[in-house]
């Protein structure tokens, strides 16, 4: 394969689809070797991924969905935490682009024999992995991997409570698809913000794209420093973020409402009195939506606890984009693999 730049590669890969989209296309920009979180990704790069995702989604609607673009490339997934949707999404994305996808889990792998993460990822690199898709229960694990690797690209598929950048990209893609643009949109994230990697990556992405994120939840589940505004000084990336513990106020005028999964462990840890009280005070339900934001799109990163953070009627109602998010996740991951798994061009660091 010849080494071509991502922009050209992208056009080559999906030419039949891309030509159908009649809109002026800004030049494709991508400078990252890894995708660790969105803090290091520019708005232009996000736009590149979202635009490419749109072409991928169009491809998913075709009768023959498979493209040969990544033939001969190897994608490995290394998940140290149980996950169905994210892993299946990456695996499907890789296979639809004809890459070889190899799944590894910590279950039965060398990590259980005491091998360090660094040794494991070096072994995978030596086994010719072009892209390593990683999920790890420890925040920062993909950084440790990226630090150790000089040929394999790392995609963070969720690290501890830190980041889940592909989820944030699919969230932004879904908002853009539903509402036309991200700029100026009031996106209310409700729930356990402090333990949520989804919320953290969404914050970076939404702020970069000019949306207004609103964080809402019980004060015991909010990042302490943001809740107390201890340090929202000049240059802080989250100056535009609103923090609100009262859901009625938070939802007022919302364009998007995104409840997060509530983990049962939070009760045991003494952070919340009960599921019942949580549902009563912070559940996203139809009554609240009708009162404050009847037009809002409802999203959820899944899996949902229906009846806890979201009422069943809302989860499956007309405003819900939850299923669409899954399809969009596939499109976004195809776009990213296309950018990262194809042979590295000259503009990578």
């Amino acid at each position: 394969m010849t080494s071509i730049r991502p922009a050209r590669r992208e056009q080559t890969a999906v030419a039949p689809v891309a030509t159908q989209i009649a809109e002026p296309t800004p030049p494709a920009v991508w400078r990252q070797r890894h995708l660790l979180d969105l803090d290091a990704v520019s708005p232009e790069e996000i736009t590149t991924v979202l635009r490419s995702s749109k072409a991928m989604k169009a491809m998913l609607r075709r009768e023959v969905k498979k493209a040969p673009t990544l033939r001969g490339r190897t994608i490995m997934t290394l998940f140290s935490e149980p996950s169905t949707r994210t892993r299946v999404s990456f695996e499907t994305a890789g296979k639809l682009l004809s890459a070889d996808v190899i799944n590894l889990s910590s279950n039965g792998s060398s990590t259980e024999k005491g091998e360090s993460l660094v040794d494991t990822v070096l072994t995978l690199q030596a086994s010719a992995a072009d892209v390593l898709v990683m999920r790890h229960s420890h925040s920062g694990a993909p950084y440790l991997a990226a630090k150790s690797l000089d040929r394999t690209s790392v995609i963070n598929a969720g690290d501890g409570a830190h980041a889940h950048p592909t989820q944030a990209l699919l969230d932004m893609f879904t908002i853009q698809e539903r509402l036309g643009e991200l700029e100026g949109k009031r996106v209310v994230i409700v729930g356990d913000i402090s333990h949520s990697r989804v919320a953290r990556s969404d914050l970076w992405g939404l702020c970069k794209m000019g949306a207004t994120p609103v964080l809402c939840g019980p004060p015991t589940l909010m990042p302490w420093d943001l809740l107390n505004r201890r340090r929202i000084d000049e240059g802080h990336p989250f100056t535009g973020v609103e923090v609100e513990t009262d859901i009625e106020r938070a939802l007022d005028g919302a364009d998007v409402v995104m409840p997060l999964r509530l983990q049962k462990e939070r009760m045991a840890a003494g952070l919340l009195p009960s599921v019942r009280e949580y549902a009563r005070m912070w559940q996203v339900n139809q009554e609240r939506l009708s009162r404050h934001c009847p037009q809002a799109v409802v999203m959820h990163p899944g899996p949902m606890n229906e009846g806890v953070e979201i009422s069943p009627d809302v989860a499956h109602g007309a405003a819900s984009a939850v299923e669409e998010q899954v399809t969009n996740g596939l499109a976004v991951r195809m776009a990213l693999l296309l950018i990262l798994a194809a042979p590295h061009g000259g503009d990578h660091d």
Partner: protein
Amino acid sequence: MTDAILVTGGRIIDPAQGIDAVGDVLIADGVVVSAGPVVGGPVDCPVVDATGLVVTPGFIDLHVHLREPGQEDKETIATGALAAVRGGFTTVCAMPNTEPAMDNAAVIRHVMDAAQQAGLARVLPIGCVSRGRAGKELADMGEMAEAGAIGFSDDGAPVADPTLMRNALTYSTTTGLPVINHCEEPSLAKDGVLHEGWVASRLGLPGQPAAAEETMVARDIDLAGLTGGKVHIAHISTEGTLALLRQAKAAGKANVTSEVTPHHLLLTEEWALGGIEGGAGELTAPDPYGPLTRTAYDTRAKVNPPLRTEDDTLALVEGLKDGTIDAIATDHAPHTATDKCCTMHEAAFGISGLETAFGLCYSLVERGDLDLPTLIARMTTGPARVLGADTSESAAASGLPLLGTLQAGAAGDVTLLDPDAEWAVDTSGFASKGRNTPLEGITLQGRVIKTIVGGRLVHDALADDTGEANGK
């Protein structure tokens, strides 16, 4: 005088005597004979030319981890003692979190014997407060004191049970020795790996609130007042702790002292964010809001108590200056590369600090926040007072030599410094087995040139530079 050494022509700073003048220091038979205006020495006595250098009493470090017995892959008493003298420390106090723990007289004696064999820095052992550092029953404090322990601590494992702490303080009055507590309320600190603030929040890591330290400091001050025991608060890290200590010292009802580490004086939580790849080489914290690179989650900046905020560092510097804080102590915590080459959750807490302590602290002098004699005082007279080795009478009572001063009769421990020398931290040249420091590659000003312990030259940086063997 059979065994003498003369240090000539240096700027002598001896805070205990209020001396800051050019002169000579004469040591004979292991003790200082005189320090002051040129005295000259006996014919044929070895002479150390200190022209252009600062000559101070040997530094005293109240808090080091030498790892022996049990964790010799991290450090041994010999490597730790060599790291000490390279850092200008002539006396170090060894924490008891060894394996087995230093909770009885036999282990205390073992540590003292190994230190004797190494023949470098004086190593003063700290015994455990509780048997096995388990926080349940008192260890044999009396026997350990007889064997040579200079204080008691369950370091790393805070004495969480208030009644045990009360009993330890009460019982230790029979020995006159301090109980040294690592103040950290376990139920508040929980599994926190960094300071609870923006950086931990951004990185998705559990944090330790400042209150975890402060609540226990407040408790220990109360208990010291209640019992009449001596409490020494280890490695204080927050503005709130400083306020509590200031209040306690003003009230004068509790016998309380404290120490601060160089890293808590100068580094902040942002250091965990990692830096520009390759490093900028300057002592500046990473941009808290900039994009993370793959050097993020810098486990070398994981230390307990965690690096705090800039406000905390500024308050601690104030406290050091006004004497609220008695001593600078390194909390030298050497670890293997494996202990740090892992995720932030898995990484060991601790910084290898002996060999960078003076250079790091000297940046306070360089930026005008502290004068050199005060810095020297907190590394000499301050810790000597905590040990009860600052006057001839108290030293005799403690069974220690007179330390932290160059007055006649004091231990012949001298450190020679070049405040103008710039040097880049290169851990591959460390004497310590622990290369775990976030200062790797950083240029520091202020270098330890020579170290003399008991009248013997045990470290000579200039000889090291030219590849000559180290005089031992």
